[in-house]
């Protein structure tokens, strides 16, 4: 566990370890009191540390190895999930998972980036970095949802689209571009939830929806802080400054009008209580589904257009 922890989590982990040690002992009034005290200390510690995270530290939380991934939410929230594979053109890309499932009685399409937990799974999922066939699979499932009139839920969690020779050969740029174009035209409701890392175009290719939410500690950015630092500071180790400058946190993006809502995370981040986190995501989806009923298809497409049309801050002279 501590091997995975980020440096700023160390004090939390120490108290957690002490607590576990105490709880393992036979119960007596003294330890009970001690446990109570430690639990209060832990809660305060988590509150303090998480209230004062730097933007870079939030990137680390978004990338936390124990953070729930798309599959974790699918398992917690949906019943009868059936994964559907392949883009029907070239291959199946495990960096994106897609399929249909039932959510509180209603059938929905669910599409999301998928990272791997252990090294073998990480390699299999290509660290959540899709190739073109991943985006084409995603679009195929979205078009199925359109045909059979089922709402679409997209979960974003990727460092970015895969930068490799094969990906370029098969049209990484075209695959992303086509998704942006086609998602703007879909008539069915589309919810987008950034659950971890929103890495640039590779994230946006699943991100053109009617409602865009971010988990509190997730990030969404045009470039990784490391990449930005190496270009604009000529030094990749300036990523802390770059993270601050890029405005990639949920609160900053809400202020800029680029997202619609923030889903608060349990104390200490989603990875501290994945069950509670999934419950909150579920409640968010349920409320969104409820809201989307009253809107007609043409109205929905027009609203989605206006939403993205309004994005951007510029000035006008004369």
């Amino acid at each position, binding site marked *: 566990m501590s091997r995975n922890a980020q440096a700023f989590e160390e004090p939390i982990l120490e108290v957690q370890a002490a607590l576990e040690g105490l709880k393992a002992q036979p119960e007596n009034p003294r330890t009970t009191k001690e446990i109570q005290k430690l639990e209060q200390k832990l809660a305060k510690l988590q509150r303090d540390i998480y209230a004062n995270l730097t933007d870079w530290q939030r990137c680390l939380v978004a990338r936390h190895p124990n953070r729930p991934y798309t599959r974790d939410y699918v398992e917690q929230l949906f019943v009868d999930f059936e994964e559907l594979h392949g883009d029907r053109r070239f291959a199946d890309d495990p960096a994106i998972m897609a399929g249909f499932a039932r959510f509180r009685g209603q059938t929905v399409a669910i599409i999301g980036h998928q990272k791997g937990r252990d090294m073998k799974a990480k390699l299999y999922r290509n660290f959540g970095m899709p190739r073109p066939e991943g985006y084409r699979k995603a679009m195929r499932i979205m078009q199925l949802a359109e045909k059979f009139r089922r709402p679409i839920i997209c979960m974003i969690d990727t460092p970015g689209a895969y930068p490799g020779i094969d990906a370029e050969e098969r049209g990484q740029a075209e695959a992303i571009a086509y998704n942006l174009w086609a998602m703007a035209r879909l008539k069915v409701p589309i919810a987008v939830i950034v659950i971890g890392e929103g890495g640039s175009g590779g994230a*946006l290719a699943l991100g053109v929806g009617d409602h865009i939410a971010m988990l509190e500690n997730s990030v969404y950015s045009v470039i990784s802080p490391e990449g930005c630092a190496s270009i604009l500071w000529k030094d990749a180790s300036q990523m802390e400054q770059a993270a601050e400058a890029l405005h990639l946190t949920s609160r900053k993006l809400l202020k800029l009008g680029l997202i619609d809502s923030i889903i608060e995370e349990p104390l200490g981040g989603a990875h501290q209580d994945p069950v509670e986190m999934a419950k909150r995501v579920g409640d968010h989806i349920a409320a969104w589904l409820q809201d989307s009923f009253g809107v007609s298809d043409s109205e929905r497409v027009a609203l989605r257009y206006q939403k993205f049309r309004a*994005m951007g801050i510029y000035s006008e002279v004369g």
Partner: protein
Amino acid sequence: MTWFIKKSEPIKVQKEKTVIVPEGMWQKCPSCREIIYRKELVRNDNVCPKCDYHFRIDPKERYDSLFDDSRYTYLHTSVRSTDPLTFKGLKKYRDQVKSLEKRGLEHDAVHVARGAVGGIDTIIAVMDFNYLGGSMGSAVGEKITRAIETGLEDRVPVIIFSCSGGARMMEGALSLMQMAKISAALARLSDAGVPFISVLTDPTTGGVTASYAMLGDINIAEPKALIGFAGPRVIQQTIKQELPEGFQRSEFLLQHGMLDAIVSRSEMKQKLVRYLTFLAPVTD
């Protein structure tokens, strides 16, 4: 004991090809290193007579060569970049924008103009690499979106000459979202049956390639242009291998089915007129 010894050579980063424009009479071709007489280069549409490398040209030169009698009107010139994130890298973004405007680059990284091309009323957007590497920020996104919307309202075909390193980092996710904004506008244009032709020039990478540059009814490129999603250096750092010869050049993209044709500068107008005629909306 190891059977194979891994040579620990540092990753070779290809030196950026910089075009030093001398005041003098001669210019070196960044592709074949030939020394070319400037007047000859200009006579040859700024194309290297030896290797056919297409030098980057100013939007104005592009317009003069495309619009009939070099007559056209600029559109949407009032849109300017601001500094929404008060971004400061090694330089302040605000200062960069100011000094570019002082240098007379008030069009930001994209110019929009309207005029007749072979007698066909056409809107042409041309990106300018001299303005922060042709990067796409909010102003670029807004200008291109307005160009598309004008095309939609007046049922006038739209052509975009891309030349860009991608989204503008200094505006963060605001830049990223321009990809979605422009693509959504193009979807409307497409539904209305108004043609959009994308012309990719050297270089077109990142968020520009991964949005409008790849969404043309017809996608064409100038010869030997660098075109890709990820830049070659990023790919090299990721896979730690030498990249194949000609990788991510126009010819490579044509071979892999991403382009309809490669069109040299001397033929550009003639071909565009032909495409516009083929795709002209049928009036009934």
